[in-house]
């Protein structure tokens, strides 16, 4: 038995009468609620604490010169670079480009993933027909064929959108297949016995049942979208965070490289958070049931 802060005093009081134990439990209630409140607060603060600790370690590394400043610049220099990049519009311009490519790529890739995933879930023969192509695409590192996408789709944003779409497609596809196949056959039979049509079965049963799994796939896709867009930009582009990293690196502006990488992280986290929020809103019925 794990000894929680509440369980520990109870163990120590073994052997006291039931009444005494009841009184003890009642006396402990305010303390228990305080512990719960503190626990919730700690949970909320823990990411902040982690980030603060990381910043302190980072500062310590540069302050005591454990690693050359050429490789790891001090946090203050990175902050200065961030302020400068925000002020002169560099960061906004490149972030806007990457965000645009990501969003279009995400919409494009996820839509295709959902459609093909649903079709495969309903018609297993399709899985045999399409899986060689899908697995081949997925198992080949995108950096290997991204230059080909640039040649085929041109040097404009369309090649980056396709790169993003390719990388976000697979998690959507797999989770849609798993989600739709996971729908209870008995519930499906029940719907059919009630003369529900295909659309009704989809809307009232399949979609709500598969949604948690589909949304989990969307979370993965959202974080992968940054990788897709940036890989496309690395291969050939005039704007975007991938270009900014290359430019900053080629000019030995290490703080700006850090700013760009942190911006990519922030975008990925924000997109993940956005999908989590959508999930929280859409799956409120699940929490009610629970």
């Amino acid at each position, binding site marked *: 038995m794990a000894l929680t802060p509440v369980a520990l005093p109870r163990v120590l009081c073994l052997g006291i009468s039931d009444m005494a134990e009841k009184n003890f439990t009642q006396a402990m209630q305010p303390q228990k609620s305080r512990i719960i409140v503190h626990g919730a607060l700690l949970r909320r603060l823990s990411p902040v604490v982690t980030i603060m600790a990381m910043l302190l370690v980072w500062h310590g590394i540069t302050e005591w010169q454990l690693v*050359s400043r050429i490789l790891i610049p001090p946090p203050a220099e990175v902050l200065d670079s961030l302020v400068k990049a925000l002020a002169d519009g560099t960061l906004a311009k490149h972030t806007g480009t990457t965000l645009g490519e990501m969003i279009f790529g995400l919409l494009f890739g996820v839509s295709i993933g959902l459609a093909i995933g649903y079709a495969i879930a309903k018609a297993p023969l399709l899985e045999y027909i399409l899986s060689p192509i899908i697995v081949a695409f997925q198992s080949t590192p995108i950096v290997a064929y991204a230059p080909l996408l640039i040649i085929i789709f041109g040097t404009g944003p369309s090649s980056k959108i396709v790169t993003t779409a390719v990388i976000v497609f697979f998690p959507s596809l797999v989770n849609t297949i798993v989600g739709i196949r996971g729908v209870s056959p008995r519930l499906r039979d029940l719907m059919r016995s009630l003369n529900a049509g295909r659309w009704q079965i989809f809307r009232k049963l399949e979609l709500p049942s598969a949604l948690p799994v589909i949304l989990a796939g969307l979370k993965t896709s959202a974080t992968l979208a940054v990788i897709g867009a940036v890989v496309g930009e690395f291969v050939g582009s005039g704007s975007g965070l991938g270009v900014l990293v290359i430019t900053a690196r080629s*000019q*030995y502006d290490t703080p700006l490289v850090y700013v760009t990488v942190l911006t990519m992280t922030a975008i990925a986290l924000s997109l993940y958070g956005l999908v989590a929020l959508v999930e929280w809103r859409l799956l409120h019925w699940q929490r009610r049931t629970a």
Partner: protein
Amino acid sequence: MFKLVRIVSLISFLGAWVASAQAPLVQERVLLTFIPNVQFAPFYVGIEDGFFAEAGFDVTLEHLQEPEVLDLVAVGQANFGIVSGEQVILARSRGRDVIYIFEWFQQYPVALVYSDALDLSDLRQLRGLKVGIPGRFGASYSGLTTLLSSAGLSETDIEVNEIGFNAAEVFCLGAVDAAMVYANNEPLQIRSRAQAGDCGPISDVEVITVASQVDLVSNGLIVSRDLLNTAPDNARRMARALQAALRLSINNPAQAYLASLAYVDTLPRDAALITELQAAAARQTEFLALEPGREAVAESRAELLRQLSAQFDPGVLTQFQVLLNTIELWDADQLGRSDLASWEAMRDTLALLGFLGDELGDLSDAFSNDYVMVRNA
């Protein structure tokens, strides 16, 4: 007793001599850019023909991106690296104290390639054309800026397209009118495509090298200031070993190609070609014993290509031809030396692009010719 002392002394002397003769080689990483390629032949020759070992080094080669090469040398994680002079200026302007001690490429390797249907006899005719570059960074961008500047133009006078390192494909698809490329490699590929009818309407190409307009400092060997302070002799021995290997590569390209086979998997290794190159290398060694001048050696290279072209398909010889083209960019009476004017021209280009940081200081501190052998190896 006296005899015994003499024997002991003799044994001690022989022991010391054997120990010094077997002094272990110093392990050194030399950081290169790009990927293993016949263009790095002098380094393969340096290892295979024992120039580095003779200088006391057991060299291993690693390939990284230029900024990584420079930073690893700057922080002392590697002692030697190859980068372009442009990178040295940029890095020094942001606090990296690296010194360029050997100019490997005597000519800046970047060029503008365009269809022979275009008339660009005057560079001002570039106005309004679409020009492809890998991106707004690196040697190609500096080269384009220099070309434009030499014609009194700026980037706003043309349409710049960032096409990545796909110049041959994008150019042949007709997406750009001209492209910045490496003079020793891509024009050869584009020309062979064009002549095979595989480059859209383009039947042949013309090339304008940046070096024909302005002398910019190019690729060379760098070390850190710390190394020069603590072990200047190591820097000197490495520079001179590279100088000797480079001279042999220039003088005997067949031998350089054969040395490259162990490092570059993609080189054609047709048995007939290798046999022919081995014979050519042996003949060239005999020829070099006569101490011919640079022009005579250049003629011998051209003659070798003519002989090989009569026997082998162009596809088999492409990489050998890349090597010969690259040798033209390396060759000079005095190898390894760079001059202040070429550094200043590069600095001016980078200043024009607004890429320089605040810490550049005196440009003459960025390079040194003290580590090069004055007479050619």
